[in-house]
């Protein structure tokens, strides 16, 4: 891996770290606008993070080292996963390390510890949250995988870089014809994974409706900051995955300097437009009942199957 590529991919990771709060700010802002409120300013979200980092903590006496360790594990996992996705050019820092299965399972590892930590303090909320979270995410897993596999089938590779590169080579809109269902599937999964309406409501603290919030109820201070941040990062990862796999245009291959100047802009554009879509969904739809969510995920799975079938029926190279 050449020197410049290394620098670039490092820059990508940093970009994601930096950008993550902004994206969720964007969505918050949209909602505020839709409710005729003036939402927080962009600076506010960073300020909140900083404040949390600087605060002290209150920790339950029941908490064990699992509770303490979880934020670190979660964040580092998210970080590693983040450094596997290509952002504004076809390479990524650790993309060579493994393929999309590794990527998915890294995120799963984070979730595993999150769910454990939720049980650690022995509240009924924690248990409820972790139970629901694990249930939904395990139902989301096959849809996520199958959608990715459908793409992989098209690209003949499982590596995220490879996917991005492959779709970047294809003529636009021809690919979309097959992959659109997969896009739908991944969108639904992304919403579920990043805990947004209609699956989960990030804003609520009403025990019956919350999932993700319930798990981290006991956290405060720097730990909370880490968790929130990695949550936002995860959301951004999914968005950029969507962006770079389905709309790979303008993804530069790290040779042309012009492309390098041009592609981050395009990336931002894509990300925020996707964020707009998600925000829009969030504005329009109400939260689903817990036991309706599986149906939604089922839809996602069916979409994934459809995209696979489409490719099989019409042959790979149409």
């Amino acid at each position, binding site marked *: 891996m050449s020197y410049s590529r290394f620098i670039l991919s490092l820059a990508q990771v940093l970009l994601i770290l930096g950008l993550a709060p902004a994206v969720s700010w964007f969505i918050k802002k949209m909602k505020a606008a839709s409710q005729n409120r003036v939402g927080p300013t962009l600076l506010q979200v960073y300020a909140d993070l900083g404040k949390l980092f600087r605060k002290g903590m209150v920790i339950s006496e029941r908490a064990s080292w699992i509770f303490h360790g979880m934020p*670190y594990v979660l964040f580092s996992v998210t970080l590693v996963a983040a450094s596997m996705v290509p952002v504004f050019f076809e390479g990524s820092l650790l993309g060579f390390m493994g393929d999309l*299965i590794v990527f998915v399972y890294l995120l799963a590892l984070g979730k595993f510890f999150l769910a454990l930590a939720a049980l650690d303090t022995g509240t009924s909320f924690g248990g409820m949250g972790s139970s629901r979270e*694990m249930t939904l995410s*395990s139902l989301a897993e096959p849809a996520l995988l199958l959608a990715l596999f459908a793409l992989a089938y098209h690209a003949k590779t499982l590596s995220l870089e490879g996917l991005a590169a492959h779709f970047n080579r294809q003529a636009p809109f021809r690919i979309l014809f097959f992959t659109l269902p997969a896009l739908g599937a991944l969108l639904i999964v992304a919403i579920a994974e990043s805990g947004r309406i209609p699956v989960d409501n990030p804003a609520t603290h009403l025990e019956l409706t919350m999932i993700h919030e319930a798990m981290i109820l006991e956290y405060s201070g720097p730990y909370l900051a880490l968790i929130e941040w990695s949550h936002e990062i995860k959301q951004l990862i999914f968005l950029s995955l969507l962006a770079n796999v389905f709309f790979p245009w303008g993804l530069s291959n790290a040779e042309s300097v012009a492309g390098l100047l041009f592609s981050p802009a395009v990336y931002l554009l894509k990300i925020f437009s996707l964020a707009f879509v998600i925000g829009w969904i969030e504005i329009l739809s109400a939260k689903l009942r817990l036991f309706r969510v599986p149906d939604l995920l089922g839809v996602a799975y069916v979409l994934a199957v459809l995209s696979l079938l489409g490719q099989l029926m019409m042959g790979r190279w149409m």
Partner: protein
Amino acid sequence: MKSLFVLQIILYILGGVAGLSFERNKTRTSVLTYLLAAAGGGVGVLYSLVALRGQNLLVLNLPGFALFGNLRLEVDPLAAFFIFVISFLSIATSIFAIGYSREFKGKSAGFLGFLYNFFILTMILVVAVRNAFYFLIFWELMSLVSYFLVVFEHEKPEARRAGILYLVMTHVGTAFISIAFLALFANSGSFSFDDFVKSAPSLSSVWKNTIFICALIGFGTKAGMIPLHIWLPEAHPQAPSHVSALMSGVMIKTAIYALLRFLFNFLGSIPSWWGSLILVLGIASTLLGILYALMEHDLKRLLAFSSIENIGIILLGIGAAMFFASSRHFPFASFALIASLYHVLNHAVFKGLLFLGAGSVLSATHTRDMESLGGLIKNMPWTAACFLVGSVAISALPPLNGFVSEWMTFIALLSGFQCEGLGIRFFSPILASLLGLAGALAAMCFVKAFGVTFLGAPRSSHSEHAQEVSPSMKIGMMILALSCFFFAAAAPFIVSRLGKLSAALIGSEVPSSYFGRGSFLLEPSGLGQFSPWFAWGVFAAVLMSLLVLGRLWLKERAIQIGPTWDCGVPNLSPRMQYSATGYSKPLRRIFSFLYQPTRRVEVEDEGHELLRTAQRFESKIRPLFEEVFYRPVAKLVFWISEKAKQIQTGHIQLYLSYIFVTLIVLLLLVRLT
């Protein structure tokens, strides 16, 4: 080499005898037996590692019954691999058992040691023997000894019931296995495996299919393949924990071993539908196994069910291998086979670890019911840590060994992309995604298992006053916990070794460069790649640095310890935590078509429903296979027997008429022929 093999056998025999000979209930005796067993395991690991290379296989040729040929023991690479797995696990369990067998003071722990040693011995022999007749003998002995281990605490009625179910089921299996072997004998005219292999081409396809089906049923029963699994969750929990570790860890794998022998050695070329059938059974076992595991709140039963899941994963690998072999994609085939063999090893390690953990919990709290556990991580940090490692590994999460083999299974399934035929191209990703579902469910299952057992607040005085277990038990668990990391890191080496083995099985030489470059594992057609080293190198680096930073950062932050937030309700009691049953409630509801749960709520109140004094909630799921198939069959058999017993009425005239009628019928028969 050969001497080591003999030495291992002798060590086990000595261990067994030691268990019986010296004073029964002294700790010294059990220490001696288990040390001998551990030594045997060590020896086994030594020579099996060498024999795995495949040069100079060791052969022992003992005289036997005249009609059935010699008792020939031979350690070829396949056998060596399984011997390695058995021996390796048995080291850890034996060391664990030294401390654990204190549980059985006064219940003739010596006898337990005797059975334990012979159990391991029979497994080794089953793997090593090369003659159908003696194979059956050792096979049945293995079942018999394990039966005695299952009913070791036979004052418990459920243990007795489980024992009967177990032995009868395995006996049914053995009947099918014997048919398979006898058919091979009828074809080859001899009982020796070599002749089976020689005469494999001359098998007619009808016989081939019959033998395949019989072998599948027979060994599937032992392996706990759905729908033949019903004995497994009953029997495994009943045995003493170090034995359950062996049963779940390796005993069911001997069935996998035998299945491989049949499929790749005895039956010659493979029709493609075999592979598909095994794939279907595999995915069924995987999903149903973990789904049933999720509903358990008995720790050891939960583990037993998850064994069914893992057998499913192994079968997925084998099925894929067979399919690819039948469509002559040999690189893929051997990759799939590597995956399944690798998973055999890994599952042995972490399932063994988990059972040992469960054993420690059992010995510390004397209950297996998760509903009365909790908060053990405070009093038993070591056990908790080891159990956590096991849980992460079995949930197939990076960077532990479980993930490596699961990743390979994924890839093996996805290689179906490369094959001709819409069917495989369509179903391979579907199967893979379902495997993903199973993985996620497993993660949930073990979050529940670990979380409810070790985290939160203790739910009973047992778990509140639990003590950390004795050093030997800790050591036993540590060995396995560490090897969970080791077998992940050693992946490239293991894969190259297994590559040779699987190539030999499939019968086509595939260069190991297909499967790995440097520290990377490769899919033969470059579909995907993964480097466990990097994965957990990077992960560990990031984590470590974060931890350091975090510590530094938190130094000057004020951290105060307070009670858990009780949302204003005073004195938050442990009973307000989520219970194991509650944890899996959403799934129980989502998959209600499978579970068909029934619930009973009893409320006691003082006149008005708001003035509740007590409330009892009970929720059961319907064991589908038992109720739909097994119980009706058993009922039918007994009904028929009852009816058939009518012939013995006690009237002598009737008896005479039996003779009479038979005679006349026979006379007419002769007349007419």
